[in-house]
């Protein structure tokens, strides 16, 4: 794809908007369809798109394997951590009511971070799967 100017320019134009859309889906999950899973997939799609146009090696420079694996684990930890926050503030595990003075605000806060955790892990998993399939036979270790 190195010489395909049109694709490269269009990709460069589109990728920021795809990422922005991911953020929109993430934060609009409270009010309409969307949420962490979808946002994670869309964000991963942006990176995969980048990898398709600019090559796997470039993509791995931008989003290294190390980061992907960290994302995989960090999202789950964030989710579980919110549960511990509930415990620390005197509620049960995964209790969001106690996360803010107002129980409803607490639920909002709790679900916000949980969805963030979901998005991070889903994005990580998608990229991990993509990297593993595309790198097959290339860097066999």
């Amino acid at each position: 794809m190195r010489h395909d100017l049109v694709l490269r320019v269009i990709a460069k134009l589109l990728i920021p908007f795809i990422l922005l859309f991911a953020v929109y889906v993430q934060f609009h999950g409270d009010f309409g369809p969307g949420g962490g899973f979808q946002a994670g997939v869309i964000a991963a799609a942006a990176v995969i798109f980048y990898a398709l146009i600019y090559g796997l090696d470039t993509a791995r420079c931008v989003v290294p394997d190390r980061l992907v694996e960290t994302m995989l684990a960090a999202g789950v930890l964030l989710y579980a951590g919110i549960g511990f926050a509930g415990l620390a503030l005197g509620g049960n595990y995964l209790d969001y009511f106690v996360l803010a003075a107002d129980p409803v605000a607490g639920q909002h806060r709790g679900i916000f971070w949980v969805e963030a955790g979901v998005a991070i892990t889903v994005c990580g998993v998608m990229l991990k799967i993509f990297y593993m399939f595309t790198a097959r036979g290339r860097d066999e270790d």
Partner: protein
Amino acid sequence: MSLASHLPALQVVLPLVAAPLAVLVRHTGAAFLLVTLASWAAFAIAVLLWQQIGSHGTISYALGSWAPPLGIEYRVDRLSAFVLVLVAGIAAVVLPYSRRSIEAEIPREQHYLFYAMFALCLTGLLGIAITGDAFNIFVFLEIASLSTYVLIALGRDRRALMASYQYLIMGTIGATFIVIGVGLLYLKTGTLNLVDMSVRLQEMSNHRPVLAALGFLTVGISLKLALFPLHQWLPNAYAYAPSVVSAFLAATATKVSVYVLLRFYFSVFGESLVFHRLPLPEIMLALSLAAMFAASAIAIFQDDLKRLFAYSSVAQIGYITLGLSFDSVSGLTATVVHLFNHGITKAALFLLIGCAVTVVGGSSLSRLAGLGKVMPLTAFGIVLGGLSLIGVPGTAGFVSKWYLVLAALEKGHWWLALAIVASSLLAVAYVWRFVEIAYFRAPPAGLPVRREAPLSLLVPAWLLIAATIYFGLDTSVTVGSAAGAAAELLGMAK
């Protein structure tokens, strides 16, 4: 609130958190330490919960403070506490063994991932035992199964991949059946909470969808617990998985599935539907007998010790489901006791086979010739474990068979008591195969005269063998808990 009231949540969450942490540290030693500590903590919590149950009765924990039946409830009663102790205990013993054992079997750069998967598998199995929510059971079952497929595929034999794939297909079919069953129950009752579900099912127990749900759940769970004709995935999976994984799975995975079956039969559907209006006890009885005889007979003709004991597992599961089919307190006691006794015996056996594999390089019977001379401790341990499988007095296996025979006689089935003894003779035959090869053959040339496995492998394995003997002599803990759990199950059903 004190931390003690949050034990049910911590029971599952500690191993769950250990998994991503193990991935984050990316270091074998640190990951090993994290997961081992988490499993020890889980074992401590399980014992604490078991003690709390003894003094205060059933514990209910509302996850996220959403009161059941709307929210997800963690519910610990006698049976689940007993299963939690078994699962967490086996994990706590097996993990210290794993460090040395996987060095020979798994590429070094995958070690931290192995520990992460192990922690996830433990999370899933503990979660199944502790949750009081039907869909939650399915989710934890999937967590446990998916991590199990990976763990099996890590085996160094390339056939491990095929075995894992076979288990993946069978396990997925089983899980699908289970989720269809849960879906039908949800459709009929509008609730996923098990206690609430059993109350609502009482008025509609003759509705067709409820019966269909019972059928789907029975077949799905039977696949998972490897009931006789549905056991095809098990021998390969146990034979080709890394030794630690075989030991852990043989002791816990099928046992937890039996727990799920008991939970649905006695706590949700109720014994009047399952045992009095449907021919399920007869079917269970026939399949259990088939497992006891056919699988034991197949075990005699195996050439690989791991496969031999894998088939023996299928046979032993037959004893477990046989006790269930009696529908009596003594029968259920035998089932629950055998869950535990067979769990520790099989874990010990697979750990000892792992010891032998590190020295002689394989588990085929021809390689194990003369093992009694080369590795006297390992070989003697395997013989003791084998005696427990046969049911020789003084071993844990005897206790469960004793209660099983009692339950059979109580029902007036004297021929069943004979069948139990006869199938034990088959166990004598397959254990004798090992004895003959280990003690009456000369070791193959090239093996050192005497070389035991390292202590880090022998100690956990012998700990479990010691437990097998201990629980064969002092039955107050195991039989006491099992009898309590059985009485509670049957009491709930009425």
